[in-house]
């Protein structure tokens, strides 16, 4: 049984000009211990899909799916209270802007301990001890001191580590990382990606990595879903995606990478309608 199985997920937003379909019948599957990358440019619906799973979309969004199961349990039809016991505990998420996604009014320690108290019911002394352990596990050594730091006192990389500590506080079975390194420098990006994959292996978690960066995909993913304007263009394991991309869109994306440039101009993919091309192929 796969850890997460979503079938024909659609998301539409009510706008003044009528409904806007952000995601059109896309299916996802993620197993334990697997790194799934969802790749696409802005507007591809890659974040919307995972926000829908987390129940984080605004009320203007309509989410439908034939099936949305986590460990065989139906997330769509379960009561909200039960769902909240899974989201934030077994399924957690980290975001692009680490400094913005932490609450500036509370210390790092308070925010990590809040997770532990809410989901595991730990007592203050225990939650503090565990929070220090968690900070150590994400590479923050002086954890006892850092617990009383506010987000603005930490660097972007440190904040992302604190976010990861929060997200892994309850040993989640599935971690969703939405562009976790886009706002960070390359050397810090490497550290954070190494940390995420190490934790993923240690805990045997499923990891869903949302990114637009083909380099990040190549370095971390086992399997890849390529999205374009709310549609799935291709799903493949990492090697076949880069070796023999099936869809025209993936080929175009890979050829637009500056490191794959052959002449003195990059091939561009302006004005190509990949949706109708995909239908033909």
């Amino acid at each position: 049984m796969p850890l997460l199985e979503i079938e024909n997920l659609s998301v539409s937003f009510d706008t003044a000009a009528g409904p806007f379909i952000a995601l059109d019948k896309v299916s996802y599957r993620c197993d334990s211990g697997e790194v799934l990358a969802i790749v696409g440019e802005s507007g591809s619906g890659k974040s919307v899909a995972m926000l829908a799973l987390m129940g984080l979309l605004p009320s203007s969004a309509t989410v439908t799916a034939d099936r949305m199961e986590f460990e065989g349990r139906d997330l769509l039809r379960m009561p909200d209270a039960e769902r909240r016991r899974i989201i934030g505990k077994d399924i957690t998420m980290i975001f692009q802007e680490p400094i913005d996604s932490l609450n500036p009014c509370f210390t790092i320690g308070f925010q990590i301990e809040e997770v532990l108290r809410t989901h595991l019911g730990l007592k203050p002394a225990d939650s503090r001890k565990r929070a220090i352990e968690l900070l150590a596990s994400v590479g923050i050594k002086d954890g006892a001191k850092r617990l009383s730091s506010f987000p603005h006192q930490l660097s972007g990389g440190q904040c992302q580590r604190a976010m990861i500590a929060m997200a892994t506080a309850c040993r989640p079975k599935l971690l969703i990382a939405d562009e976790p390194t886009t706002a960070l420098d390359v050397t810090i990006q490497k550290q954070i990606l190494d940390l995420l994959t190490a934790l993923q292996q240690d805990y045997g978690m499923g990891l869903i990595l949302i990114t637009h960066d083909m380099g990040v995909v190549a370095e971390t993913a086992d399997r890849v879903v390529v999205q374009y304007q709310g549609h799935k263009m291709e799903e493949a394991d990492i090697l076949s995606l880069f070796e023999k991309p099936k869809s025209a869109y993936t080929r175009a994306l890979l050829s637009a990478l500056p490191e794959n440039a052959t002449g003195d101009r990059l091939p561009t993919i302006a004005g190509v309608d990949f949706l109708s091309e995909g239908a033909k192929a």
Partner: protein
Amino acid sequence: MSNPVLEARNIVRDYPASGNMFSRGEPVRALKGISFTLDRGRTLAIVGESGCGKSTLARILTMIDRQTEGELYIDGQPIDIAKAPATKAQRRMVQMVFQNPYGSLNPRQKIGDVLGEPLKINTRLSAAERRDRAYAMLEKVGMDPRHYNRYPHMFSGGQRQRIAVARALMLNPELLVLDEPVSALDLSVQAQILNLLADLQDEFNLTYVFISHDLSVVRYIADEVMVMYFGEAVEYGAREEVFADPKHSYTRTLFAATPRADVESIRTRLAARETATV
């Protein structure tokens, strides 16, 4: 060529630090003596992490900020705005394109006015001439003349960056300082803007200072590369040299940290994990 467009000799920039009640703080040295020369029609890429001083350098090169020490020559003329303000002629030679095309265009200004404003301030051209030049420039950067009367919010990120490039070119500058011009853009749009910059460089013989943290972009666009680290140029040389044989340990760290999107490195990674699990 004997006459470089841009020459910097030992540029230093100190920022005063706030001390406590009883003492003034030690000034923060953001640039610790940067030197380079850049010939006409060439591209110098400046690479480094946040806080390394690359944007401070850009502000000095564009005469927005003054240097504390050192000499700056633009088109052979010495410039130190702490001593004498730059002339209009000097200012029009150097233009800048910013990272975020959503923030760098005035949302209340029509595209035509965005492009006409530099001419209005710096030249005595009539309104009709300004309009004609704006139309011509829109076409040059791959936009439609019909876009003249539209507002920035009606455009995509890539189109806005085209407009920002067009605005920078209105005064026929020699030198364009591009501060992370493609890092806010999607991959496919990034390719278009990089091509546009290459086309414009060929057509107008422009000189670029290209600030970036993305090594794959730098490798593609640069002639010369400077790697900065804590206000110092730890590596400076021709692109091929720097990429083939990085001298400084920081440069090597940077190269090693850059994700590689090729089949070979994927194979290596998968193989390494195979052996780790066995």
